[in-house]
């Protein structure tokens, strides 16, 4: 599972890429663990950028559930952004759209969870 990160003030955008299924879920979990551990009250807000994720199976969704649960227990914030249409359908069918606040774009997610992060994001893009 390929995960890249970009920091914007007090927000961390993690961009996931590829197919999340039985063969890649361990990689997803390993990749997320360190970030989720620091997602706590006063820490970085996490935005999971799904724009490059083509598919996610039940086992991948379970990893996301664990991440959400841990973050909430720590007082942190974790949201999802830029779901592709098929992945958005999977979120709706599995009711994971009720577990995660889902935003159309990373920018919209930052606007909700981190004004400072949004300013840094816009500044980087010259907007």
């Amino acid at each position, binding site marked *: 599972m390929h995960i890249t990160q970009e920091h914007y003030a007090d927000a961390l955008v993690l961009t996931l890429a590829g197919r999340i299924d039985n063969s890649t879920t361990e990689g997803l979990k390993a990749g997320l663990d360190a970030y989720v551990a620091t997602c706590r009250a006063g820490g970085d807000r996490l935005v999971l950028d799904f724009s490059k994720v083509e598919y996610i*199976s*039940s086992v991948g969704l379970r990893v996301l559930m664990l991440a959400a*649960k841990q973050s909430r227990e720590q007082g942190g914030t974790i949201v999802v952004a830029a779901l592709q249409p098929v992945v958005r359908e*999977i979120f*709706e*069918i*599995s*009711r*994971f759209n009720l*577990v995660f606040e889902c935003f159309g774009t990373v920018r919209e997610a930052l606007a909700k969870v981190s004004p400072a992060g949004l300013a840094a994001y816009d500044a980087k893009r010259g907007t």
Partner: protein
Amino acid sequence: MAGLWVKFWGTRGSIPVALDSATIRGKLTRAIVAAAGKGLDTQEKARAWVENQLEFSVSHTFGGNSACVQLDAGDKEYVLCDLGSGVRVFGNHVVARDGASKPNVYHVFVSHLHWDHIMGFPFFAPAYVPGNTIRIYGCHKELESALRRQQDAPCFPVPFHRLGASIEFVTLEPGRSYDVAGWSVTAKLQAHSGDSYGYRFVRDGRVVVYTTDSEHRLDDPSAVEAAATFFADADLVIFDAMYSLAEAVSVKEDWGHSSNVVGVELCQLANAKHLVLFHHEPANDDERIAQIWQETLRYEEISRSGESLRISMAYDGLEIEL
């Protein structure tokens, strides 16, 4: 009825659910509005339109009785899974068809002893008729005591020992194959409070898997593989899809039930042909269950990598030919 059939007499989970008057009025209202301008001026036209055109969740209900499923190969002896409240309807059907005095043999495979899976037995008319034989199979050592206890005073007026039929209990060993009434039957331990057991039935090269009240832990690859092996190449998998995936892995984790999404994935992994979603959540009305059905059909399309998987939503009265 020739061939191999599976008939659903009870499909609801946890507790029977009755349609109330407000719900029936709502269905009638929607049907009347939908029928406007259709020229349905005879009983025949109206019936054909209801059966073929009217929205499924309006023309049907997904059922109120708790678990009872019949495997019907056209034999004289009856084969059932579970003794939920649906077995009352089944028993009445047999008595109406055969008459009360015709002796019959019933083979019943019990998944587990939670009340919704045994509550129909005190209302199973053939149990009161001398000459009938009822053989109850299961893997729980408390199988007989649980059936007896639910008829003890003050819970029920007729104690178990007063039942007229000959009632026998057979304890099965999981993983071992048994020949019963023309079927080869194998039980499998499932994750559920107090344990439950699924059954794999094989006959004439056809396979039916009855797997209710079973939670599938996605973080345990060996358990997933074992489930897929149990479902392997099944013609029909009757699957507990009580919760959404999000519920099953969060607030209702360890509650012992599964989801439509996991049902699809396991059947695809097992190369099963037909998935029947079963053990419906009592809180879900017909519209909600119909929505889950449509969503499951879509999820099957999205996740499909080989042959397509047929998907049905169980309802009381559903009959499927294998």
